[in-house]
């Protein structure tokens, strides 16, 4: 939307102070001297002319439109290419690094980048959260984001294209997430393994552990030492929960529908209600637009709504 004003594409010039209207009559000398903006950060190597009048939205930001555009582009590319790294996260610090000394425009850049991501890719950055353990559903923000799709498609259509060569893993993950969800968010590792045995999944030696480790590395699952002893009283149990990435990427709605699909035609009446009750999850009507990153970039990462159903929050 603001792109008409931005002339040059091409290499960033934010490191030298010579861009912008060179109307400084005193010649260059020290760039800081002629600063008319009461800018706290003395490191800014701005051109000496005040930038306030350039463009409407940038009145108080002290950043040239071309630079702002550069930042937005670089943040978008950072997000896109981060999805290839192991952790697939975008750290807030990395974004700040792009801004160099202009950290004041972080929020504005973030919002623009999100918009660009949605327009071009149908994706957005969602903050990964750590879930409070004390039984309350508080979520604390970590300072990192993952990229997730916000296209309004149902389960099969969307992921089939994306996960292509990993359909098996995705299916397995959905099974695990469902098992966890209908137990109100937590399952013992031993119980999970029992389920696998009953379903005759991953009977090979060590296969379960490998897959679980992979999911944990990708942050789809979390393991933790449990807070209570198990039945026999002496073995220490591990608890498995949804990981931060699952919370951000996979709306519970999808899991509910996954379960329904498995039942298929054999579904008991009101299966959906049964699932929701067992999972003890809330249904909230949240419009899709509200959640994604508010100005602080701290937007509560409610999962995007499925097509016509209400969004469900864990």
């Amino acid at each position, binding site marked *: 939307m603001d792109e008409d004003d931005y002339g040059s594409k091409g290499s960033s010039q934010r490191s030298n102070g010579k861009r912008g209207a060179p109307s400084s009559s005193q010649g260059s000398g020290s760039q800081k001297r002629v600063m008319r903006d009461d800018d706290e950060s003395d490191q800014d190597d701005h051109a000496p002319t005040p930038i306030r009048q350039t463009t409407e939205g940038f009145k108080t930001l002290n950043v040239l439109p071309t630079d702002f555009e550069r930042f937005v582009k670089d943040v978008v590319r950072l997000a896109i290419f981060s999805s290839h790294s192991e952790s697939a996260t975008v750290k807030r610090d990395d974004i700040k690094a792009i801004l160099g000394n202009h950290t004041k425009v972080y929020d504005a850049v973030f919002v623009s980048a999100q918009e660009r991501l949605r327009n071009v890719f149908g994706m957005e950055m969602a903050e990964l959260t750590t879930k409070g353990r004390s039984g309350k559903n508080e979520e604390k923000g970590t300072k990192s984001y993952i990229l997730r799709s916000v*296209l309004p498609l149902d389960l099969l259509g*969307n992921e089939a294209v*994306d996960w292509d060569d990993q359909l098996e893993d995705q299916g397995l993950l959905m099974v695990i997430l469902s098992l966890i969800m209908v137990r109100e968010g937590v399952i013992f590792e031993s119980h999970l393994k029992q389920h696998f045995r009953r379903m005759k999944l991953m009977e090979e030696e060590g296969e379960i552990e490998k897959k679980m480790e992979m999911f944990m590395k990708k942050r789809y699952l979390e393991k933790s030492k449990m807070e209570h002893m198990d039945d026999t009283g002496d073995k220490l149990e591990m608890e498995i929960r949804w990981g931060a990435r699952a919370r951000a990427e996979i709306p519970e709605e999808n899991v509910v529908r996954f379960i329904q699909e498995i039942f298929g035609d054999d579904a008991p009446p009101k299966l959906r209600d049964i699932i929701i009750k067992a999972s003890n999850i809330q249904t909230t009507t949240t419009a899709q637009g509200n959640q994604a990153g508010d100005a602080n970039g701290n937007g509560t990462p409610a999962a995007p709504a499925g097509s016509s159903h209400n969004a469900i929050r864990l």
Partner: protein
Amino acid sequence: MTSAVYTDTHRLFLQAVISRRFMKEDTAKQLYSRACQATKGMSPTEIRSHFDKHQTAKIVPFDEDDFTEFVNAVNASLNSVELEIRRTRDEATGDDVLALTNTNEQKIAQVATGYTPLELEYFKHLLDAIVMADDELYCISSTAAVNEASKLKNKDNKSLQLTKSGAEELLSRFIQDKWLIKSKTGALSLSTRTLLELQTFLKEGYEEQMQECTLCLEILTKGQRCNVAACAARLHHHCAKTYYENMNNPLCPTCRSPWDGKVLIGLGPNAEAPQSIRRR
């Protein structure tokens, strides 16, 4: 020319492209048709029964022009973030491949994500050695590459910490991530991905050494050259094949002398790479 509308089909396709980043054109076309399907609003059951029945994704017939126009529309949108989907042909196989690339890659670091500065430094050394190889071979032996690791020096001229085994591991990562190719004889050369994604870097940094195919004008590190030493004509294998397909008497496109395609650019199929590395 009607301006293309940009829809969720485009976005879905793009998301699939992002996760793969580099693929054969055939794969891309499949993704295109599946993206069309997915966004046609088919219910899960309908899509599933289609998959079951046909065992294939090519249900929606489409034609070449549609696909090209589709990719153009995606690129028009990608332009706003200085990315684009580029198309080229694999030098070894002649396959058409697509890759998502930066349009202004000035630094390797921007392109090859997931490597530390030290690793990138090593990569740059290898690139340099490969491009500078004698006789337009555009390759080095893996042994030489590993030995090269010990010669890495940082700005203060102190040795950098890359052991031989570290270098070997790193090499296999480069190969796995498709930046380098290793031949049966252990020769390392530039992959199609590197040629595509680091084009600007290579062309600008190695103006003299990088050559173009006389016919298609794209970068060339594997192919054939004119028998006449002074003639600059160079051709990709696949370009030569098409060009000389119906010619009884193959002649060089530049100097018209007989062309037998036996003088090679890059390493011959079973030859071994040179053991020494020339430095700039």
